[in-house]
Protein backbone atom coordinates (compact mmCIF):
# COMPACT_ATOMS: atom_id res chain seq x y z
CA UNK A 1 0.00 0.00 0.00
CA UNK A 2 2.77 2.39 1.02
CA UNK A 3 4.74 1.45 -2.10
CA UNK A 4 1.70 2.21 -4.24
CA UNK A 5 1.32 5.61 -2.56
CA UNK A 6 4.95 6.46 -3.14
CA UNK A 7 4.71 5.35 -6.74
CA UNK A 8 1.67 7.60 -7.20
CA UNK A 9 3.55 10.60 -5.77
CA UNK A 10 6.54 9.92 -8.03
CA UNK A 11 4.32 9.48 -11.09
CA UNK A 12 2.45 12.70 -10.42
CA UNK A 13 5.68 14.63 -9.88
CA UNK A 14 7.12 13.26 -13.08
CA UNK A 15 3.98 14.09 -15.07
CA UNK A 16 3.91 17.62 -13.68
CA UNK A 17 7.58 18.17 -14.50
CA UNK A 18 7.15 16.68 -17.96
CA UNK A 19 4.20 18.96 -18.79
CA UNK A 20 6.06 22.03 -17.63
CA UNK A 21 9.14 21.04 -19.59
CA UNK A 22 6.99 20.69 -22.75
CA UNK A 23 5.44 24.09 -22.12
CA UNK A 24 8.88 25.64 -21.63
CA UNK A 25 10.17 24.04 -24.83
CA UNK A 26 7.15 25.35 -26.73
CA UNK A 27 7.79 28.80 -25.36
CA UNK A 28 11.47 28.60 -26.25
CA UNK A 29 10.46 27.95 -29.86
CA UNK A 30 8.51 31.20 -29.83
CA UNK A 31 11.54 33.20 -28.82
CA UNK A 32 13.35 35.37 -31.29
CA UNK A 33 16.90 36.49 -30.68
CA UNK A 34 17.56 40.13 -31.28
CA UNK A 35 21.29 40.59 -30.74
CA UNK A 36 21.67 41.61 -27.16
CA UNK A 37 25.24 42.73 -26.81
CA UNK A 38 24.76 46.45 -26.73
CA UNK A 39 21.13 46.56 -25.70
CA UNK A 40 20.50 49.68 -23.72
CA UNK A 41 24.08 50.75 -24.12
CA UNK A 42 25.13 54.31 -23.61
CA UNK A 43 24.43 56.59 -26.50
CA UNK A 44 27.85 56.45 -28.00
CA UNK A 45 29.44 54.51 -30.79
CA UNK A 46 30.15 50.96 -29.80
CA UNK A 47 33.66 50.31 -31.01
CA UNK A 48 33.68 46.70 -32.01
CA UNK A 49 37.22 45.86 -30.97
CA UNK A 50 36.39 42.22 -31.43
CA UNK A 51 35.61 42.69 -35.11
CA UNK A 52 37.91 40.38 -37.03
CA UNK A 53 38.26 43.07 -39.67
CA UNK A 54 39.89 45.64 -37.44
CA UNK A 55 43.47 46.14 -38.59
CA UNK A 56 42.94 43.87 -41.59
CA UNK A 57 42.54 44.67 -45.30
CA UNK A 58 38.94 45.50 -46.17
CA UNK A 59 37.30 42.52 -47.90
CA UNK A 60 36.89 43.02 -51.63
CA UNK A 61 33.35 43.49 -52.91
CA UNK A 62 31.55 44.11 -56.15
CA UNK A 63 27.98 45.27 -55.57
CA UNK A 64 25.25 46.82 -57.65
CA UNK A 65 24.22 50.41 -57.10
CA UNK A 66 20.64 51.64 -57.46
CA UNK A 67 21.12 52.07 -61.20
CA UNK A 68 22.33 48.51 -61.63
CA UNK A 69 25.96 49.57 -62.11
CA UNK A 70 28.71 47.44 -60.56
CA UNK A 71 30.75 49.17 -57.91
CA UNK A 72 33.86 47.55 -56.42
CA UNK A 73 36.03 48.27 -53.43
CA UNK A 74 38.94 48.57 -55.85
CA UNK A 75 37.22 51.57 -57.45
CA UNK A 76 38.20 53.54 -54.34
CA UNK A 77 41.79 52.35 -54.11
CA UNK A 78 44.09 54.88 -52.49
CA UNK A 79 41.22 56.88 -50.95
CA UNK A 80 39.97 57.02 -47.37
CA UNK A 81 36.63 55.23 -47.35
CA UNK A 82 33.66 54.81 -45.02
CA UNK A 83 31.53 51.72 -45.73
CA UNK A 84 28.22 52.25 -43.94
CA UNK A 85 25.72 49.38 -43.65
CA UNK A 86 22.16 50.63 -43.16
CA UNK A 87 18.54 49.58 -43.60
CA UNK A 88 15.34 51.37 -44.57
CA UNK A 89 13.75 50.22 -41.29
CA UNK A 90 16.62 51.62 -39.24
CA UNK A 91 15.82 54.96 -37.61
CA UNK A 92 19.30 55.60 -36.17
CA UNK A 93 20.80 54.92 -39.61
CA UNK A 94 18.69 57.75 -40.95
CA UNK A 95 20.00 60.08 -38.30
CA UNK A 96 23.58 59.22 -39.21
CA UNK A 97 23.36 59.23 -43.00
CA UNK A 98 22.88 63.00 -43.42
CA UNK A 99 26.01 63.45 -41.28
CA UNK A 100 27.92 61.12 -43.57
CA UNK A 101 26.63 63.09 -46.54
CA UNK A 102 27.83 66.31 -44.94
CA UNK A 103 31.29 64.90 -44.23
CA UNK A 104 31.60 63.37 -47.69
CA UNK A 105 31.33 66.90 -49.07
CA UNK A 106 33.33 68.62 -46.34
CA UNK A 107 36.28 66.26 -46.78
CA UNK A 108 35.97 65.66 -50.52
CA UNK A 109 39.22 67.55 -51.07
CA UNK A 110 40.94 65.00 -48.82
CA UNK A 111 39.68 62.24 -51.06
CA UNK A 112 37.06 60.92 -48.62
CA UNK A 113 34.56 58.53 -50.13
CA UNK A 114 31.44 57.27 -48.39
CA UNK A 115 29.41 54.32 -49.64
CA UNK A 116 26.16 53.10 -48.13
CA UNK A 117 25.40 49.39 -48.32
CA UNK A 118 21.73 48.57 -47.85
CA UNK A 119 21.16 45.58 -45.61
CA UNK A 120 17.49 45.17 -46.35
CA UNK A 121 16.05 42.03 -47.88
CA UNK A 122 12.38 42.99 -47.72
CA UNK A 123 12.23 46.12 -49.81
CA UNK A 124 12.94 46.93 -53.42
CA UNK A 125 15.24 49.43 -55.04
CA UNK A 126 12.48 52.00 -55.33
CA UNK A 127 12.00 52.15 -51.58
CA UNK A 128 15.73 52.32 -50.97
CA UNK A 129 16.13 55.07 -53.56
CA UNK A 130 13.19 57.01 -52.11
CA UNK A 131 14.67 56.88 -48.61
CA UNK A 132 18.14 57.87 -49.80
CA UNK A 133 16.71 60.77 -51.73
CA UNK A 134 14.62 61.97 -48.80
CA UNK A 135 17.72 61.86 -46.60
CA UNK A 136 19.59 63.99 -49.13
CA UNK A 137 22.19 61.30 -49.70
CA UNK A 138 24.21 61.63 -52.89
CA UNK A 139 27.03 59.18 -52.16
CA UNK A 140 26.69 55.73 -53.77
CA UNK A 141 24.09 53.42 -52.30
CA UNK A 142 24.90 49.78 -52.97
CA UNK A 143 22.77 46.69 -52.56
CA UNK A 144 24.20 44.16 -50.16
CA UNK A 145 24.75 40.49 -50.89
CA UNK A 146 25.02 37.52 -48.51
CA UNK A 147 28.75 37.38 -49.26
CA UNK A 148 29.30 41.04 -48.41
CA UNK A 149 27.31 40.59 -45.20
CA UNK A 150 29.32 37.53 -44.27
CA UNK A 151 32.62 39.24 -45.04
CA UNK A 152 31.84 42.48 -43.22
CA UNK A 153 29.17 41.85 -40.61
CA UNK A 154 30.42 38.50 -39.31
CA UNK A 155 26.97 37.31 -38.38
CA UNK A 156 25.70 40.41 -36.61
CA UNK A 157 22.59 42.16 -37.84
CA UNK A 158 22.78 45.36 -35.83
CA UNK A 159 22.55 48.55 -37.85
CA UNK A 160 24.06 50.96 -38.50
CA UNK A 161 27.51 49.45 -38.76
CA UNK A 162 30.43 51.32 -40.29
CA UNK A 163 33.89 50.33 -41.45
CA UNK A 164 36.58 52.99 -41.74
CA UNK A 165 39.13 52.07 -44.39
CA UNK A 166 42.32 54.07 -44.83
CA UNK A 167 44.22 54.83 -48.04
CA UNK A 168 46.13 51.57 -47.81
CA UNK A 169 42.88 49.58 -47.76
CA UNK A 170 43.17 48.67 -44.08
CA UNK A 171 40.12 48.74 -41.77
CA UNK A 172 41.23 51.04 -38.96
CA UNK A 173 37.92 51.20 -37.06
CA UNK A 174 34.59 49.42 -36.88
CA UNK A 175 31.56 50.92 -35.16
CA UNK A 176 28.09 49.63 -34.42
CA UNK A 177 25.08 51.74 -33.55
CA UNK A 178 24.52 55.45 -33.45
CA UNK A 179 27.05 57.74 -31.80
CA UNK A 180 27.47 61.48 -31.80
CA UNK A 181 28.16 63.55 -34.87
CA UNK A 182 31.42 64.74 -33.33
CA UNK A 183 32.60 61.18 -32.80
CA UNK A 184 31.76 60.35 -36.37
CA UNK A 185 33.73 63.32 -37.66
CA UNK A 186 36.71 62.36 -35.48
CA UNK A 187 36.76 58.90 -37.03
CA UNK A 188 36.49 60.38 -40.50
CA UNK A 189 39.52 62.59 -39.77
CA UNK A 190 41.40 59.64 -38.33
CA UNK A 191 40.66 57.65 -41.48
CA UNK A 192 41.86 60.47 -43.70
CA UNK A 193 45.06 60.84 -41.66
CA UNK A 194 45.83 57.13 -41.54
CA UNK A 195 48.05 55.43 -44.08
CA UNK A 196 50.30 58.39 -44.89
CA UNK A 197 49.95 61.08 -47.56
Amino acid at each position, binding site marked *: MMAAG*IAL*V*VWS*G*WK*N*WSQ*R*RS*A*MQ*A*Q*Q*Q*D*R*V*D*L*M*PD*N*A*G*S*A*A*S*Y*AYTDQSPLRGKPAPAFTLLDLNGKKVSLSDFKGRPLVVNFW*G*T*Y*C*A*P*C*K*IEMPWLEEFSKKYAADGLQVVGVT*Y*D*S*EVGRDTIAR*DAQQLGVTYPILLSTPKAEKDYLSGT*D*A*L*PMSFYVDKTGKVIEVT*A*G*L*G*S*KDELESMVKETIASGGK
Partner: protein
Amino acid sequence: MKATCLNRTRLTFAPIVSLVFILATTAHLGHAQLGMDAPAKPKSTVLYAAEPQSVPAARSSLLELRFQIVPGFHINSHTPNSQFLIPTALTLQPADGVKLGAPQYPAGVPFSFPFDPGVKVDVYSGSFTVKLPVVATAGDHAIDGTLKYQACDNASCYPPKTLPVRIVFTAK
Protein backbone atom coordinates in the same frame (compact mmCIF):
# COMPACT_ATOMS: atom_id res chain seq x y z
CA MET B 1 20.31 13.00 -13.82
CA LYS B 2 16.56 12.96 -13.27
CA ALA B 3 16.04 10.54 -16.14
CA THR B 4 18.67 8.27 -14.65
CA CYS B 5 16.79 8.22 -11.35
CA LEU B 6 13.54 7.39 -13.10
CA ASN B 7 15.08 4.53 -15.02
CA ARG B 8 16.13 2.74 -11.92
CA THR B 9 14.10 -0.39 -11.33
CA ARG B 10 14.87 -0.66 -7.63
CA LEU B 11 14.09 2.44 -5.65
CA THR B 12 14.81 2.86 -2.00
CA PHE B 13 12.89 5.31 0.17
CA ALA B 14 15.68 7.91 0.42
CA PRO B 15 16.12 8.34 -3.33
CA ILE B 16 12.34 8.60 -3.70
CA VAL B 17 12.19 11.44 -1.20
CA SER B 18 15.07 13.13 -3.03
CA LEU B 19 13.38 12.61 -6.35
CA VAL B 20 10.07 14.03 -5.16
CA PHE B 21 11.95 17.05 -3.79
CA ILE B 22 13.81 17.55 -7.07
CA LEU B 23 10.62 17.26 -9.11
CA ALA B 24 8.75 19.66 -6.87
CA THR B 25 11.64 22.14 -7.05
CA THR B 26 11.86 21.85 -10.82
CA ALA B 27 8.13 22.36 -11.19
CA HIS B 28 8.34 25.49 -9.04
CA LEU B 29 11.24 26.89 -11.04
CA GLY B 30 9.44 26.10 -14.28
CA HIS B 31 6.44 28.05 -13.11
CA ALA B 32 8.57 31.07 -12.27
CA GLN B 33 10.36 30.93 -15.62
CA LEU B 34 7.09 30.80 -17.50
CA GLY B 35 5.72 33.86 -15.79
CA MET B 36 5.37 37.07 -17.80
CA ASP B 37 7.28 39.00 -15.20
CA ALA B 38 10.24 36.65 -15.18
CA PRO B 39 11.48 35.56 -18.59
CA ALA B 40 13.63 32.46 -18.52
CA LYS B 41 16.72 34.32 -19.67
CA PRO B 42 16.89 38.06 -20.15
CA LYS B 43 18.70 37.64 -23.45
CA SER B 44 17.33 39.97 -26.09
CA THR B 45 14.10 38.27 -26.91
CA VAL B 46 10.47 39.07 -27.47
CA LEU B 47 8.20 36.62 -25.73
CA TYR B 48 4.63 35.61 -26.27
CA ALA B 49 2.94 34.02 -23.30
CA ALA B 50 0.31 31.58 -24.52
CA GLU B 51 -2.29 31.57 -21.79
CA PRO B 52 -5.44 29.48 -22.14
CA GLN B 53 -8.47 31.74 -22.06
CA SER B 54 -12.18 31.29 -21.68
CA VAL B 55 -14.94 33.32 -23.35
CA PRO B 56 -18.73 33.06 -23.58
CA ALA B 57 -19.87 31.01 -26.58
CA ALA B 58 -21.63 32.74 -29.48
CA ARG B 59 -21.07 36.18 -28.00
CA SER B 60 -18.69 38.94 -28.96
CA SER B 61 -15.66 38.66 -26.67
CA LEU B 62 -12.10 39.89 -26.43
CA LEU B 63 -9.08 37.61 -26.24
CA GLU B 64 -5.89 39.09 -24.83
CA LEU B 65 -2.46 38.38 -26.30
CA ARG B 66 0.32 39.39 -23.96
CA PHE B 67 3.82 40.07 -25.22
CA GLN B 68 6.95 41.00 -23.36
CA ILE B 69 9.96 42.81 -24.76
CA VAL B 70 13.31 42.29 -23.14
CA PRO B 71 14.55 45.32 -21.19
CA GLY B 72 16.78 47.57 -23.26
CA PHE B 73 14.84 46.97 -26.47
CA HIS B 74 11.76 48.52 -27.97
CA ILE B 75 9.70 47.73 -31.04
CA ASN B 76 7.72 50.03 -33.28
CA SER B 77 4.09 50.37 -32.22
CA HIS B 78 1.27 49.59 -34.61
CA THR B 79 1.36 53.26 -35.59
CA PRO B 80 5.04 54.23 -35.44
CA ASN B 81 4.60 57.82 -36.68
CA SER B 82 6.60 57.26 -39.83
CA GLN B 83 5.72 55.63 -43.11
CA PHE B 84 9.30 54.36 -43.29
CA LEU B 85 9.14 52.30 -40.11
CA ILE B 86 7.69 48.82 -39.90
CA PRO B 87 4.60 48.68 -37.67
CA THR B 88 3.98 45.86 -35.25
CA ALA B 89 1.16 43.82 -36.75
CA LEU B 90 -0.64 40.59 -35.96
CA THR B 91 -1.64 38.30 -38.81
CA LEU B 92 -4.02 35.46 -38.01
CA GLN B 93 -5.18 32.44 -39.93
CA PRO B 94 -8.87 31.56 -40.12
CA ALA B 95 -10.04 29.05 -37.53
CA ASP B 96 -13.13 26.84 -37.69
CA GLY B 97 -15.96 28.06 -35.53
CA VAL B 98 -14.31 31.41 -34.83
CA LYS B 99 -15.21 34.76 -36.32
CA LEU B 100 -12.24 37.09 -35.98
CA GLY B 101 -12.42 40.83 -35.60
CA ALA B 102 -9.64 43.33 -36.26
CA PRO B 103 -6.91 43.22 -33.60
CA GLN B 104 -6.91 46.16 -31.20
CA TYR B 105 -3.41 47.46 -30.57
CA PRO B 106 -2.40 49.55 -27.58
CA ALA B 107 -1.07 53.07 -27.98
CA GLY B 108 2.69 53.33 -28.01
CA VAL B 109 4.94 55.73 -26.18
CA PRO B 110 7.13 58.42 -27.77
CA PHE B 111 10.80 57.54 -28.10
CA SER B 112 13.68 59.51 -29.55
CA PHE B 113 17.17 58.27 -30.27
CA PRO B 114 20.08 60.04 -28.63
CA PHE B 115 21.62 62.86 -30.69
CA ASP B 116 18.36 63.52 -32.47
CA PRO B 117 15.74 64.24 -29.81
CA GLY B 118 13.60 66.13 -32.28
CA VAL B 119 12.50 62.97 -34.07
CA LYS B 120 10.07 60.92 -32.04
CA VAL B 121 8.85 57.49 -33.00
CA ASP B 122 6.02 55.61 -31.34
CA VAL B 123 7.13 52.37 -29.71
CA TYR B 124 6.25 49.56 -27.34
CA SER B 125 8.62 48.59 -24.58
CA GLY B 126 8.25 46.37 -21.55
CA SER B 127 5.02 44.46 -22.05
CA PHE B 128 2.03 45.14 -24.22
CA THR B 129 -1.30 43.47 -24.89
CA VAL B 130 -3.13 43.10 -28.18
CA LYS B 131 -6.86 42.49 -27.88
CA LEU B 132 -8.62 40.29 -30.38
CA PRO B 133 -12.41 40.40 -30.84
CA VAL B 134 -13.90 36.97 -31.47
CA VAL B 135 -17.26 35.26 -31.70
CA ALA B 136 -16.81 31.51 -31.25
CA THR B 137 -18.97 28.44 -31.16
CA ALA B 138 -18.93 26.39 -27.97
CA GLY B 139 -15.83 24.25 -27.56
CA ASP B 140 -12.07 24.41 -27.62
CA HIS B 141 -10.40 26.57 -30.26
CA ALA B 142 -6.90 27.43 -31.46
CA ILE B 143 -5.93 30.33 -33.69
CA ASP B 144 -2.49 30.42 -35.30
CA GLY B 145 -0.75 33.53 -36.50
CA THR B 146 2.35 35.64 -36.42
CA LEU B 147 3.37 38.93 -34.91
CA LYS B 148 5.58 40.95 -37.20
CA TYR B 149 7.78 43.46 -35.43
CA GLN B 150 11.00 45.34 -35.82
CA ALA B 151 13.17 45.99 -32.80
CA CYS B 152 15.80 48.52 -31.85
CA ASP B 153 17.81 49.32 -28.77
CA ASN B 154 19.22 52.65 -27.72
CA ALA B 155 21.57 52.90 -30.68
CA SER B 156 20.97 50.09 -33.16
CA CYS B 157 18.13 48.50 -35.06
CA TYR B 158 17.59 44.90 -36.09
CA PRO B 159 15.87 43.34 -39.08
CA PRO B 160 12.13 42.70 -38.95
CA LYS B 161 11.11 39.40 -37.39
CA THR B 162 7.97 37.32 -37.20
CA LEU B 163 7.02 35.63 -33.98
CA PRO B 164 4.69 32.62 -34.19
CA VAL B 165 1.68 32.83 -31.89
CA ARG B 166 -0.95 30.25 -31.04
CA ILE B 167 -4.03 31.44 -29.20
CA VAL B 168 -5.80 28.69 -27.30
CA PHE B 169 -9.20 29.34 -25.77
CA THR B 170 -12.46 27.71 -24.78
CA ALA B 171 -15.90 29.08 -25.57
CA LYS B 172 -18.50 28.01 -23.00
